[in-house]
């Protein structure tokens, strides 16, 4: 498989690159595009359709291409994979995210004996945990599933996914690969460390927490973060992205959950992923920019296990950008330098990826990397 990555500021540049590739004999069949919501992604879909290149894309809170981390542009990965080895499915969440995701998993299982999935989801209030639950529904078989929740330059208004023919601000799209032929390996890692004691979610429904330790959730949150100098109050995402909840799940996996919105009327907190009554959590904090070296080292282990790669996808949480600022470029470069192969990605509102134990979870504040290799 051949692959090319590129970063452009304008769609016209994207078309020029595409023409150059075609002129030089590289005929991509599949494209993955991550772009700023400021870009005309409708035009992008037309462009790919006009060249008969299959497409999976979404809007972002920042784009990654090789060692570049930028805002406002378009990052694109082009691959010339045989059309027999992948299939793109697009699902509008007409029956909710869980059923939408479940439908996609059923399609994946019916398409290939051994599928692997790249998933993008749109809809700022959608529950990432439900998406993963849907993608894993009805089977105990863990398959490689990686992806991210689309972004919108941190406006938290509207996020989009798109393919050659479809655009949606509330849906899920996936590329299902034949994992017997196209191998997907990856890892999601965060590096965040817990801080303070355990707290208990005493009232919650789906991804909305109403009370913590029997105290209204927003009051509890603001007691820690909204002391007047912080920007907490009704927009906790401004501050909580850097200090997410570290939740201990029933399977003992620890996942980070980022409060994204506060509601002053019922004093509730909305998270990107769901949480249950009785769940225990602690606040967490990034152990400064040093964690970047730790992340790079973790991916070095992945590199040693999977030295060969045709292309890479990186889903990194926008919260990491808030915490690491310009240092996040070092993380992107460090990861790229391990393989020095075409890599694209974006800053997400939530990440999907398999942990070191192979179990796929929904995450926040993590960096989820996928290595794509044709066997």
């Amino acid at each position, binding site marked *: 498989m051949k692959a090319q990555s590129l970063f452009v500021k304008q769609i016209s540049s994207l078309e020029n690159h595409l023409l150059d590739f075609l002129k030089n004999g590289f005929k991509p069949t599949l494209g993955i595009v991550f772009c700023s919501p400021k870009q005309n992604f409708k035009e992008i879909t037309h462009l790919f359709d006009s060249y008969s290149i299959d497409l999976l894309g979404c809007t972002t809170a920042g784009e990654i291409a090789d060692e570049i981390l930028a805002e406002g542009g378009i990052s694109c990965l082009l691959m010339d994979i045989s059309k027999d080895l992948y299939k793109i499915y697009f699902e509008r969440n007409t029956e909710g995210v869980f059923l939408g995701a479940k439908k996609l998993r059923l399609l994946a299982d019916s398409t290939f004996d051994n599928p692997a999935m790249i998933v993008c989801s749109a809809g700022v209030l959608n529950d990432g945990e439900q998406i993963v639950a849907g993608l894993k529904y009805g089977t105990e078989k863990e398959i490689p599933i990686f992806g991210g929740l689309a972004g919108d330059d941190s406006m938290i208004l509207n996020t989009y996914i798109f393919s050659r023919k479809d655009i949606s601000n509330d849906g899920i799209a996936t590329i299902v690969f034949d994992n017997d032929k196209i191998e997907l390996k990856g890892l999601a890692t965060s590096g965040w460390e817990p*801080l*303070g*004691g355990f707290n208990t979610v005493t009232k919650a429904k789906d991804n909305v927490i109403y009370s913590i330790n029997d105290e209204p959730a927003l009051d509890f949150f603001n*007691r*820690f*973060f909204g*002391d007047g*100098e*912080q920007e907490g109050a009704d927009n906790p995402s401004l*501050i909580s992205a*850097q*200090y997410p909840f570290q939740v201990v799940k029933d399977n003992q996996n620890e996942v980070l959950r980022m409060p994204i919105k506060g509601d002053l009327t019922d004093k509730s907190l909305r998270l990107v992923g769901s949480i249950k009554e009785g769940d225990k959590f602690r*606040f967490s*904090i*990034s152990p*400064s*920019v040093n964690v970047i070296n730790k992340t790079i080292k973790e991916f070095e282990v992945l590199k040693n296990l999977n030295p060969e790669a045709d292309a890479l996808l990186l889903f990194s949480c926008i919260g990491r950008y808030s*915490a*690491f*600022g*310009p*240092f996040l470029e070092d993380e992107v470069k460090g990861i790229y330098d391990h393989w020095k192969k075409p890599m694209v990605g974006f800053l997400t509102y939530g990440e999907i990826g398999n942990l070191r134990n192979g179990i796929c979870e929904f995450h926040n504040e993590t960096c989820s990397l996928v290595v794509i290799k044709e066997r």
Partner: protein
Amino acid sequence: MKENLLSFKEKLESLSISEEEKAELLESIESLNKDYVRMNFLHKQNVKDKAITINLLQNTVNELQAQKEYIAQTNVQLTLQKKQLEEQSEKLAQSLQALQMSYHELEQFAFIASHDLKSPLRNIGSYAQLLKKRYANKLSEDADTFLDFIVKNTQMMNSIITHLLEYSTIDRKRELSLVDLNRLMELIRFNLREIIEKNNVTIEFNQLPQLWIQKSGITQVIQHLIENAIKFRSTKLPLVRIEVKEREKDKLWQFSIQDNGLGLNEKYQDKAFHPFQRIDSRNLPGEGMGLAICWKIIKLHGGDIWYKENTEGGTTFYFTIPQMNLELVPQPVDVLI
């Protein structure tokens, strides 16, 4: 910093150095600028992290402090409750001691009264019988009848006192032993051989188990119930059927003693086991102590006793005792009833 960079660029243009040197200088300055931005971000981030960390830890400390205070308050309440419980427990112990003393005194009184009554009663009975023997048919007809009444009633009173004595001296020490109930039934048959033969009584039982019981107490109970069956016999020859079954659910042994006698109405269930309750209006023998003795023995065993009227006539008495095994056999305890 950006403004500084712009002004530097302008100044750089005015310098009379080569383009190559200008580019090198500009690159150096841009690198410095980038490092400045990064260090500035890092500094701000560190300050923010520090503030948040302090806030988080402060709140955690506050919560721990609040929890500590709550625990201290709870401790005070618990100490008070403990003191109250100790006081109540002390009072209860005192009441129990007083009750035990009263009970012992009552028991002693019953024993002394019964024992001391027996001797003068025996004398009254003896002299009444002597009178009857020497002066029968020599006094008036009424006098003979009066003497008969005296003899008969002294015998009855003697029987009452004997039972009262038995009731008050029921062994309260639960010394258990492993008893083969089949052999126990042979012993009971031997004890009651006279009235069994006299009344032509049939006692039936299948193979009975070996149980940990207080042998003398259970013997008394079964004997009393067989005697009752004979005493309150119907026109049929007395037939007593004994069964023992295991009640696994509540870990009990249940005994049943079924007779074909006159039958005892179930409405007297509460009264029947009280001392001196003669609930049948028919002129039947007995002082109303047998069932009271059975009740006391069974209660001392930690069991229960009751009866049911058989549909085909007669009564079935049931009693239960807790199941014991060798490991669980309790030390003898003083049981207060």
